[in-house]
């Protein structure tokens, strides 16, 4: 088996695999951009280009509002999580207080709790405080991220302690050490975890589905699932909605792919 042949074979296999895994998304795009008439014709004439589905979608649904909500939630969670995770990670990495590891272990234990088991009590808890059916009900629980703290701490542990000692000798407070040394130096890991948080939140489904009742608070995923229930058979419209939901994430991926790919690698090695 020559080297060239092997290369071509693997190229062939990869292309074939891509058709299978990427196929559904391509099919989504084709359907979304086909005119509704061509879709309902029999046999359907796929690929007859038109933006009709998107026009109908933007006129009929609140999809713009849902996108804004999704963005609000994702951005707010990402921002809050990044700050809190960084602060906590710094506290664990640089602090020398009693019970540090014990608290950290308890925090790590929280990583094992699957979302479904706390879902119901959390719902009752939030109902009691009148937070159901508001974006707060989605944002607040998502801010807790033991895994994020864990990841950032691992990274901060590798920052030499001498740097902060030198700063302290120069009269810097702990907060200044955090703000001017640890925070900027941890940027790469904060960026990676931030991007993943953003994507996870953008794609979150089960919890928003339970807590959000009014259409104006729907996030995109919840909105789309209702759209699917409303327009059972109008697949052109549904695929247009799916396209609009997927596009922002593709953009995020294109801009930040380096951080994401790097971050995955780092995460794997730890």
């Amino acid at each position, binding site marked *: 088996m020559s080297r060239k042949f092997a290369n071509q074979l693997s190229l062939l296999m990869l292309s074939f695999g891509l058709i299978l895994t990427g196929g559904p998304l391509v099919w989504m795009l084709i359907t979304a951009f086909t005119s509704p008439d061509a879709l309902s014709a029999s046999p359907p004439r796929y690929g007859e280009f038109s933006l009709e589905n998107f026009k109908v979608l933007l006129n009929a649904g609140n999809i713009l509002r849902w996108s804004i909500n999704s963005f609000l939630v994702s951005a707010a969670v990402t921002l809050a999580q990044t700050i809190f995770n960084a602060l906590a990670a710094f506290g664990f990495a640089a*602090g020398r207080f009693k019970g540090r590891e014990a608290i950290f272990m308890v925090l790590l234990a929280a990583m094992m709790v699957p979302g479904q088991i*706390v879902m119901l009590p959390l719902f009752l808890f939030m109902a009691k405080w009148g937070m159901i059916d508001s974006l707060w009900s989605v944002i607040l629980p998502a801010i807790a991220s033991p895994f994020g703290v864990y990841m950032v701490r691992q990274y901060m542990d590798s920052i030499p302690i001498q740097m902060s000692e030198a700063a302290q000798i120069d009269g810097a407070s702990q907060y200044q050490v955090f703000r001017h040394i640890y925070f900027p130096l941890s*940027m790469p890991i904060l960026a990676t975890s931030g991007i993943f948080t953003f994507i996870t939140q953008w794609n979150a489904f089960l919890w928003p589905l339970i807590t959000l009742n009014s259409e104006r608070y729907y996030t995109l995923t919840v909105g789309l699932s209702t759209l699917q229930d409303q327009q059972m058979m109008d697949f052109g419209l549904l695929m247009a909605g799916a396209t609009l939901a997927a596009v922002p994430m593709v953009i995020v991926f294109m801009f930040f*792919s380096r951080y994401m790919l790097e971050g995955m690698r780092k995460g794997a090695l730890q």
Partner: protein
Amino acid sequence: MSFLSREVANLKRASKITGQLLILCLLIIVSPQVSGEMLLKIWDFPRWLEPGQTTDRFTWITRKITEFERLHPGVRVELTKLTWQRGHEKLKIAAISGNNPDVAPGTVPLLFIRENLIEPIDDYIDKTGLSDYFPGALQAFRVKERIYGWPWYMGGQLLYINNDIFAAAGVETPVDGRWTTDEFFSAMQRIKDYQKGQHGHYPLGLYFQKDETANLPFAMAFGGRLIDDAGRFSADSEDFLKGIAWIDQLKENKIIPADSGGRTANDIWTAFGREHRLAAGAFGLWGINALKTKFPMNFQVVHFPTGTSNKNASFLGTSGFYVFRNPDKERVRLAMQLAEFLTSGENQRDLVHYTQFPTRASAGNIYADDPQMTAAWKILQEGQSTYADSRWPQIDEEFESSLQQALLGKLPAKKAMQAVCERANRILSVESGSMKDDINQSSLFARIVAVISILALIFALLSRQAHLIMIVPAVTITGLFLFYPLADALILAFRDYRIGEVGGYTIDNFIRAIGDPKFVKACKNTLLYSLIVVPANVFTALVVASLIYGMKGRLKNFFRAAYYLPGVASVVVLTMVWRWIFNTEVGLCNTTLRWLGMAPIGWLTDPDIAFWSVILSGILKSPGGSMLIYLASMANIPTSLYESADLEGAGPLRKWWHITVPLLGGTTTFLMITGAIAALQVFAQVLMLTDGGPGISTQVVVYRVYTSAFRDFDFGLSSAMALILFIAIMVITVAQKYFARQEVEYLA
């Protein structure tokens, strides 16, 4: 370092833009509220399409709301659009959690009335107003001498027949629209003969699903009833079983498709209304409108076939708007006015577009020149009222899925019906208690957790240690939103806590969970899913990563990105695409099969296949993350190993199998375990692809946890099932820790 500072500058810019967008969105969201303005919330289901509309089924109510706002200055009405599939569920969740709208649609809301959430209309209507209603319509909303809603329209289910197919087959349509089961059977058989050779064509289509009573008259053709005179659920009576046996006979004779038990109303409607592949089908009154306008057809409505009993078994239902209680009397008064306005005699004339019957005499005979509606009215007059009980949804779900199972031949009909009757009668025998009051209490254990967290917080703040204070936000939030509810969940799992029954501590929940056929099926399915999907995904990732690793430059980057990309799309998006691909009638899979001249497959409608479709959609997921991890691990394999293999003349495949694969063992274990943890929590696919059906064939654990909590409001049972899942995940996590340690030893 210069690289890093450029990175930092880039990220700063990115976060700045994000922040600005965030503020912009906030400004849009927080639109200023004019003070002194009353905001009324109304929820409604999709109604008819007004002329010129193609998708928006809310234009009528939107217009009426505007009219109402004009009549009542200072009042703003906000409409929330529900869906027929999940609207009832959403309304229940909202009402139980105190987030109810002011006005909501539907039949008499018995559950909410029991929870004392609904305001009777008696004080808001006078004698002349009352006398305008047809007595039956008011009766439908009456509970213990009070009327709990404004009746809007009356409707029911009918049997529709396609006159053209009947004529082409040379079959007479029944005189007066009446026929016996035998007459019906022979008519159907002659149509069957006529349809011979036409693929996917059948004389009749049936569907049995939650919230759909349209086809029950077939099962009740021999006098079977859902509730007998003693108030007992009696679907296991001889007469009822005879009806089921008759439907079975229809199936045996290929008058209905073999997978009828798994079909949905949508499937049947598409086949009957859009594609004219069925000669008959049962639908709500809305079908008359649809067949006149959107899907023109030469049709008529007829009686359901009757066996020994000569009574039409179709259901008659009354729907309207009801108003939730509120301490603000002015608000209630305005909500009442809104509900009355929407259901006024004048506005009921618009029901002509909805093909439903008005409830008020002052609406007049709006169907005088409509032969089909006149016929429908006559048929429905003989019908029976929809069974009204707040516990019905719970029974309904069990009943329909047992019926599906029986018709699919998964269970003997008699056994299935006896089991469901036993459960239903147990549900019916329980005296009701209020659940909402109890929600306001919190378990002791959870309160202790809360107190400890607060004490710790105070301690941290008092200690004046910067580091300790810095970890406070993350730890508090984790405590509040993870440990506190976890403590509560543990308590809930051991409490009898469901709608209509709020009791003490018990382990009954676990016994019920294990005895619940749906949960057992869910566990089996979840295991099956994990056992197939996880290894498949990991293997794909390994192969793809190996192939990509051998590539160079641009091509490598392209494939790496292209394989990762679908992974950033949400499960919801991908599942929507899969539902489109798997659609029985127009999906890609079946279109391709038909094109190849093969018989189409009921990807999501055949109970033996549906879960495999779910699995298939799981297998064909992007191998993104796992692939990247493999790529990273491969970079760590010393090249000297390959070089020495080269010297021995090993081919690429042998090198891969004997060097790459074994050395990646640790990564494989890691991916298998994290994959298994994720796979055990599969949910969105099932909810959106099949909704747990057909029958119970695609139940999975999280879906069952979700439905038992938020559809049946059986919080104790739901928590018990979640706890079982939690333990399973814990075991796997601990196993991971164990394997990881072994791995380290091996490397050392």
